[in-house]
């Protein structure tokens, strides 16, 4: 599925949306940056509570499909600007990490 399709299916709110056509391979849920660096894979949608500037750098390094901040958390204007410059999609949702991860898992497993 593409990021645009996942966004629509789960009702996510795009904040920085440079490339809705990029494929979402799977999901990755973590608030530890080194954990993401070690274990996330290219094309994963990264679900997190972190929303500071280094998140953009880590997302870019790993080539994740995008970063979703949960529980309505919104990155600052500065972070959004950096994401725009680096081409990193940023999204937010009112869902908590558990619900989003569960729904994303089902969506990607069943190809709904």
């Amino acid at each position, binding site marked *: 599925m593409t990021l645009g399709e996942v966004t629509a299916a789960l009702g996510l709110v795009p904040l920085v949306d440079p490339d809705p056509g990029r494929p979402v391979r799977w999901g990755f849920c973590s*608030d*530890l*940056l*080194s*954990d993401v*660096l*070690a274990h996330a894979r290219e094309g994963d949608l990264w679900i*997190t509570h*972190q929303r*500071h*500037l*280094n*998140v*953009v*750098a*880590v997302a*870019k*390094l790993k080539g994740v499909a995008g970063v979703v901040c949960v529980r309505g958390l919104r990155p600052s204007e500065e972070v959004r600007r950096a994401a725009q410059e*680096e081409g990193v999609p940023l999204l937010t949702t009112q869902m908590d990490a558990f619900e989003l991860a569960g729904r994303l898992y089902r969506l990607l497993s069943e190809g709904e």
Partner: protein
Amino acid sequence: MPAEGGILLRRVFPVPPDAIDQAGQVSTEVRRILRSVGAEPEVVRRAGIVCFEGEMNIALYTKGGRIVLVVRPEMVELLFSDRGPGIADIDLVKQPGYSTAPDWARELGFGAGMGIPNMEKNSDEFHIFSRVGQGTVIRATIYRRRHDLG
């Protein structure tokens, strides 16, 4: 040790202390440089991770330092050096999960105790030299062609 004559490119990046908002800039630049000299995507990926973790360590834990990127035909070297405080037990910091990060850094998602293990995992050669009170030097080498070919 590789011959000095084989250096294709050498760049030095200062890393100030406490500037974690800027951290990530060096790894972004290193990846850009490596791509521009035609380094293999896997080499760019691994060097980016090694550089980011090393850069974060200098910014979070030291009084500042620098990163030197050296590109050779057969390898990429990243040298991290700082002005202290130094590492008392190097075996301990190589253990996954060991961290001295303060609470504020942990809240930002640092301090998982995976930084140095991540650096080592993504390097083909990895050496830490440290003296408490003086500083630390880390040399990470990433081969551009796998040694297991020969």
